């Protein structure tokens, strides 16, 4: 294949978008709004990518939905908050662009498309107890239920997370119990929520604007003009048929991260994570295309980390499915390494907690927490919470290790028995005293997010009632978030900071413009949609 100018094109459009996730479809809507011809290419057989598979929640400061709920927000506070989390790893002008444009994007979608959200009142901010954080309400937005029939035959192609029931964030047990009857009814009438609702409603907006989508057609290579601008894409179908598509106004890379590309993971990330919790397909194609085009890179050693759990009886597209799991924050449980020792506050956010997996011990010359790590819990937790897919009151499945004593359990899972016994003795003492001096369990919002936040009552519970259980916790991710560096228009820039003409990126295909932060629910889809929108708009207006 050549990546120089070509005279033969199979199709000519104004804008080509790679991917059908949140970043891509928002970009496509923005580009098509002014009547430009937009072509969307999707590599897999389904649309929506990780976004459809996800909670679908964007985090958008100052949005009008929160205002309607009576929640105050303030530009300066948000900017300070993001800066506090980013620890000097994001540029001020990108933070400001996100804060200033984000709510406009959401308002535009509300006014001109079927995309609708709800401000989930009972779903606080993850860092609500930090001084700089929003204390009342949330900047997260929950996609409103959407009927898949509205996008006709495309409805069947919207990716589905097998674990998520068709409920909104608040209905989904976040505020007390799932109503499985509602779930059954929604399934019957094809009503979806979360990521599927976001994708289906964005896709409807695309259909309404005449956007063309080709599935099973991967963007493979950028076609560059003689003066270095991007003028098209070479694409390949699953049957290895090659097409050359011209893009008069720009190409937007929104094809997700590189978590399914082992070589790139090894090259860039701090540790080789074993359990992406995303659907396969995100293999770093955009990153490789952008590198070839001379893009500067950003945030490359980062990902949206997640401590993943596995119920080995679930498979998704021929892989045992790594799941978000649940129960980690609960009382009557701790997480330990191979020495049987705790090494982190177990209930910190999913993006923060796994960072402790990378700790290096310069005396032992090893990474003691690189895994396998284990969640150890007792019958009390088992009886009170859904843990991965285990419902309370049902017998533990055979894939969960269990034993009548801690020592026996440790031996079973290959963890130092003396270490684990000692750690649990200490933990139980802390529970009695109501403080965890080692890691401060029971003190942060996230560990009991919707039940008043962390407290000794919510989070410090003894591990004392057998049988005792152990579940491995793996290094996983909701996607990577390093990639080509973008500017405030979503343009990919080179190492001199100059835009590469005709080339844009958004979402996990780009370096996260907010740095390595996950400010609250929606921390990834928020910037993905905002910079996707800005890219689409700039491509057709510049």
């Amino acid at each position: 294949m050549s990546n120089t100018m070509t005279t033969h094109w199979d199709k000519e459009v104004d804008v080509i978008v790679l991917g059908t996730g949140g970043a891509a479809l928002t970009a496509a809507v923005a580009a098509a709004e002014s009547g430009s011809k937009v072509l969307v290419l999707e590599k897999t057989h389904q649309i929506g990518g990780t976004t459809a598979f996800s909670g679908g929640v964007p985090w958008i400061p100052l949005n009008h939905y929160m205002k309607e709920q009576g929640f105050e927000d303030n530009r300066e506070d948000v900017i300070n908050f993001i800066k506090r989390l980013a620890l000097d790893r994001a540029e001020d002008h990108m933070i400001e662009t996100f804060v200033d444009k984000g709510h406009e994007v959401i308002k535009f979608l509300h006014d001109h498309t079927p995309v609708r959200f709800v401000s989930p009142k009972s779903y606080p901010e993850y860092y609500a107890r930090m001084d700089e954080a929003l204390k009342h309400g949330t900047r997260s937005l929950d996609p409103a239920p959407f009927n898949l029939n509205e996008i006709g035959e495309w409805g069947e192609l919207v990716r589905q997370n097998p674990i998520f029931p068709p409920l909104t964030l608040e209905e989904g047990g976040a505020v007390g119990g799932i109503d499985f009857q509602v779930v059954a009814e929604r399934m019957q009438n094809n009503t979806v929520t979360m990521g599927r609702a976001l994708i289906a409603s964005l896709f409807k907006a695309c259909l309404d604007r005449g956007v063309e989508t080709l599935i099973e057609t991967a963007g493979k290579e950028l076609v560059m003009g003689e003066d270095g601008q991007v003028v098209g894409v070479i694409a390949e179908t699953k049957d290895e048929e090659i097409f050359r598509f011209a893009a008069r106004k720009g190409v937007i890379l929104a094809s997700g991260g590189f978590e399914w590309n082992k070589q790139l993971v090894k090259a860039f990330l701090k540790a080789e994570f074993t359990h992406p919790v995303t659907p396969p397909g995100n293999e770093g194609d955009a990153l490789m295309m952008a590198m070839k085009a001379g893009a500067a890179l950003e945030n490359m050693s980062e990902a949206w980390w997640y401590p993943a759990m596995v119920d080995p009886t679930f498979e998704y597209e021929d892989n045992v499915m790594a799941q978000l799991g649940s129960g980690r924050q609960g009382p009557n449980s701790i997480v330990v390494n191979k020495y049987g020792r705790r090494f982190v506050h177990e209930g910190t956010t999913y993006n923060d907690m796994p960072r402790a997996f990378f700790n290096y011990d310069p005396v032992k010359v090893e990474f003691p927490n690189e895994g396998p790590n284990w969640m150890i819990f007792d019958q009390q937790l088992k009886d009170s919470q859904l843990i991965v897919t285990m419902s309370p009151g049902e017998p533990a499945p055979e894939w969960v290790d269990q034993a009548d004593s801690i020592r026996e359990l440790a031996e079973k899972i290959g963890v130092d028995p003396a270490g684990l016994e000692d750690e649990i003795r200490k933990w139980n003492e802390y529970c009695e005293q109501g403080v965890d001096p080692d890691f401060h369990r029971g003190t942060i919002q996230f560990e009991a997010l919707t039940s008043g936040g962390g407290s000794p009552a919510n989070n410090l519970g003894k591990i004392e009632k057998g049988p005792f259980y152990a579940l491995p916790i793996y290094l996983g991710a909701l996607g990577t978030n390093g990639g080509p560096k973008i500017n405030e228009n979503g343009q990919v820039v080179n190492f001199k900071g100059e835009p590469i003409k005709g080339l844009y990126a958004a979402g996990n295909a780009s370096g996260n413009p907010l740095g390595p932060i996950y400010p609250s629910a929606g921390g990834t889809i928020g910037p993905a949609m905002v910079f996707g929108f800005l890219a689409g708009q700039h491509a057709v207006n510049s």
Partner: protein
Amino acid sequence: MPQGTHTVEVPLDIQTIWNFVHDMNNWAPLVPGYIEHEILSERQSTWAFKGDLGFMKKTVKLQIDIKEWNEPSEVTFDLKGMSDNFKGGGYFRAEAIDEKTTKMSGHLDITAGGMMGAMVNQILTKFVPQTAEELTEAIVAKLLEINLVK
């Protein structure tokens, strides 16, 4: 209650069909997604198979208890999930149409319980009849293969 019955006319006599169907070892591997089965006693067995729900696959272990053997026309059984909360049952029925033709029916019903029951049953509504059909068809195909192709 998710259930499905599939009926096929088979160009074989009823005894040939009975000889095949009455021994579970013959048809267990024909269950869609079959992984393994173990005969525990004359009436009891465990089965593992991977159910293809379209948007995901789920490995399930079942215990099957034969309720009745009515030679040559009926085998009925109960089933229950060993680590998943569901139960149900099924049957194979054979009815002679003439000396050389038999009507064969396979039936399956599976109902999920527990707090997720309503949701799981919604998924099973499509899966159970499909499995009943695929299994019955697979048994017929096997019967024809061994009895007609000599």
